[in-house]
């Protein structure tokens, strides 16, 4: 079966213009998402995941942020429609946002308007996009609340956000985002703010919606466990750039980029051998602070002299697998890449449960 992309991001650049200068928070990022697919976007805090997703929604706070280059092509194949969100005027953008394109935000506690009832907030977008009546909107809101597993939905529609817990609010956010039956749902760390049992329920719910409704999901997370659980393909970001991409098995079982390998090594193991938890030394550099060379060089265990002199490209490996590291430059670099590929294998096996 041939899959068509609903979203194609090409050479996206989103910069922030601050008092400290221009910050390239998203720096030449390209990826795509197929119909009905779940794409994982992973990376440490500050690597540009949220800014990438806000760019796709056309919601980058401006000022100080602005999309300065690239395309964001959003398609509905069966309707023969295509939009370039990077260039779409606000009015047109408002027609697809909350309609074919939805987003769940990272902050469930503060993402609902405190002054309006849950039912109103869920149906507000529907009533605008589909011109349905108030009554119909309310009925739909109850239906969505039920779908996302909220107990006593017909009472909760008339409650205010402050009457609900964080997990419930995030379910409401999901209900709101799913209500319009979108083509693509962007979920920006939908579970990080929640406790573990709720996390599992929310992920289960999203997986179910993906299977039942065929909604494509862009799942942003820094939790590789979530990736293993949910995703078909993975994009790994570091300091505003894509450093590795590929299908989920390849990335988890056979990661090539030293950063991805580090991320996988730092996963807590379930087997309980008491080893100290590994973490990648150092911090994510501020975007734009590294002018030349590989962004990961300061933290990379494999760093060699070329790394600080030139910028690595995204080199293609087998299939869709690609990696931004000189170790995989077919034209050279160093020729000891064979023995790098296996390092974390025994550790990643455990999280791939299928």
């Amino acid at each position, binding site marked *: 079966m041939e899959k068509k992309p609903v979203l194609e991001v090409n050479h996206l650049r989103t910069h922030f213009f601050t008092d400290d200068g221009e910050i390239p928070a998203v720096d030449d990022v390209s990826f795509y998402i197929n119909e009905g697919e779940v794409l994982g976007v992973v990376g440490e805090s500050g690597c540009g995941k949220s800014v990438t997703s806000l760019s796709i929604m056309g919601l980058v706070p401006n000022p100080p942020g602005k999309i300065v280059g690239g395309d964001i092509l959003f398609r509905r194949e069966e309707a023969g429609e295509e939009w370039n969100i990077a260039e779409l005027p606000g009015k047109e953008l408002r027609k697809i946002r909350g309609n074919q394109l939805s987003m769940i935000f990272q902050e469930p506690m*503060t993402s*609902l308007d405190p002054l309006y009832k849950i039912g109103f907030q869920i149906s507000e977008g529907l009533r605008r996009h589909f011109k349905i009546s108030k009554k119909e909107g309310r009925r739909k809101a109850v239906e969505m609340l039920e779908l996302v597993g909220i107990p006593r939905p017909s009472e909760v529609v008339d409650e205010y956000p402050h009457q609900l817990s964080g997990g419930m609010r995030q379910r409401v956010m999901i209900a709101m985002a799913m209500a319009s039956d979108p083509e693509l749902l962007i979920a920006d760390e939908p579970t990080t703010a929640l406790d573990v049992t709720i996390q599992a329920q929310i992920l289960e719910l999203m997986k179910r919606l993906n299977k039942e409704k065929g909604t494509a999901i862009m799942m942003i997370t820094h939790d590789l466990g979530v990736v293993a659980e949910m995703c078909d393909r993975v994009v790994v970001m570091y300091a505003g750039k894509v450093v590795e991409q590929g299908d989920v098995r390849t990335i988890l079982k056979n990661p090539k980029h030293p950063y991805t390998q580090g991320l996988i090594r730092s996963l807590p193991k379930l087997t309980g051998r008491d080893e100290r938890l590994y973490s990648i030394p150092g911090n994510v550099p501020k975007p734009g602070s590294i002018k030349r060379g590989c962004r990961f060089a300061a933290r990379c265990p494999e760093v060699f002299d070329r790394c600080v002199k030139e910028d690595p490209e995204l080199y293609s490996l087998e299939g869709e697998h690609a990696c931004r590291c000189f170790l995989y430059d077919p034209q050279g670099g160093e020729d000891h890449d064979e023995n790098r590929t296996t390092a974390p294998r025994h550790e990643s096996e455990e999280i791939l449960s299928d």
Partner: protein
Amino acid sequence: MGAYILRRLFMLIPVLIGMSLITFSIIHLIPGNPAQTILGEQATPQAIEQLEEQLGLNEPYLVQYGKYMAGLVQGDLGTSLRTNSPVTEEIWPFLAATIELTIFAMIFAIIVGVNAGIISAWKQNSIFDYSAMIIALIGVSMPIFWLGLMQQWIFAQELGWLPAFGRNNPRDPIETITHFYLLDTLLQGNMDQFWTALRHLILPGIALGTIPMAIIARMTRSSMLEVLRSDYIRTVEAKGIAQMSVVYRHGFKNAVIPVLTVVGLQTGTLLGGAILTETIFSWPGVGRYVFDAIGNRDYPVIQSGILVIAFMFVMINLIVDLLYSYVDPRIKY
């Protein structure tokens, strides 16, 4: 909500008692013999005695206060020393004039101030934003008597567009029912007089509304700026809601509480009687009524005037509090 209002009204009782104690004491705080002071150096002992009798000053304090309170509860504010008529009757036309002017000035201040603040925040750092905020800055620091005089000079004297003095045309007196002229003329269906009364409100209303307008605009802007940056506004944007709805329905509603606070305070201040503005525009308001009473040492009028003004202040506070809980479901009754 109904129970909450009742409870709030109940809680007003101690406040009102406190207020009455203060106004009651005013006359006793006069140094020396109050009756002597009121009547002046040349007063005869008989006159002083008679006044003491009239004011009940020779009775024990507690009895005096009891009588004063009994009167207040029945709506009796005492008798003016100068005119010998009941203050309750006498003060009302002045009060109505002040209330009418205040409402007009505040409507102007709110409509202009709120919208200027909203647009400034929405189009932050635009030409509109800069000019509106410069105007607002001038507005808060403008000496109002100067603004009033300039308005009179330009719009009344030079252009002859609007009347500069009083509440209506003195040669065409309005038959009063409530003493709110706009209401009275409407009730009588006299549109000519209605327009005349309205035209008389414009210059003093704008002069009086300028400072509140500027304060409201600044408060609205800063409150809106904070709200527009918040996560829930981003969520509303993500739903594809029209810009106007985002800014007004979600943005302004969330930003309104601090704005309500300043609206309440400013309304209270204007109701207290803007003596300067009332004087410049010959507006027969409560500020001037009390001011004249001070000149005449007409203590019952001074006492009542202060009491009535304080009472309105308290009521406005109550209304603002009720509005808070109406707007924000998180504010518990």
